[in-house]
């Protein structure tokens, strides 16, 4: 019963929840959490394919690189968010539109 399909479905649900989070939240840290959910679900897909389809462990190696990228992305994003908060007293992303015009 535990097969490739079950992991793909779990991953699809978590990816959709992450996408929902990114659209739904106005708080910049909340959006960052959504991005982390998306990256995690992609990782799960890579590892599942690495077990069931690939004879080697290439999927796990790609997943490790994705984890490193996610870590550096979180550090940079939080640094930017802290800077914005210091500057503007808010991290509501709908308020930060002066670069749009």
């Amino acid at each position, binding site marked *: 019963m535990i097969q490739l399909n079950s992991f793909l479905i779990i991953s699809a649900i978590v990816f959709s929840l992450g996408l929902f989070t990114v659209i*739904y939240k106005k708080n910049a840290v909340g959006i960052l959490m959504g991005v982390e959910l998306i990256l995690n679900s992609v990782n799960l897909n890579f590892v599942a394919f690495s077990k069931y389809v690939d004879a080697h462990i290439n999927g796990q190696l790609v997943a490790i690189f994705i984890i490193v990228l996610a870590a550096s992305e979180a550090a940079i994003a939080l640094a930017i968010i802290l800077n914005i908060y210091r500057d503007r007293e808010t991290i509501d992303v709908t308020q930060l539109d002066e670069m749009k015009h």
Partner: protein
Amino acid sequence: MEANQILFIAIALLTILSAAVVAFSNKIIHSAFALLATFTGFAMLYIYLSADFLAVTQIIVYVGGILILIIFGVLMTHRIYSTAKKTAHNSILISLLGGLLALGLFLFIISMYPWAPTVVKDFSPTTAVIGTEILSGYLLPFEIISVLLLGALIGAIYIARQEDKEK
């Protein structure tokens, strides 16, 4: 049903439900703590996929690193006494539309193909294989990502530090 399968369903439910709490929770700090359960659930799913090294890495990097960073970010940017602004969200209809559209697309693609496993792998420790592979076949990405990590570290410190001359 075997105990194995019951445990798998429990882990899958833990992961999905805590991810739903992250998505739907009104308070950002609740989302942060629900993210702890999601990351741990993913680590347990990696164990089911016989990726032992990756499961431990997931716990160390995500739970021990990224989650702590996120909680710090929440606490440093959180105005405890003005919660009215923090609970404001974008339109739930548009967000749900986006999420459900993506979910429907994924489930349609998953259901189109049988996804039969092509190899049968028993559990074997992966740490030594990953170490050998990183220093042979994946040497170039490894070096590139080391430089990227160094750049991200320095950049994060540079962006986040206080400017002395302004304050």
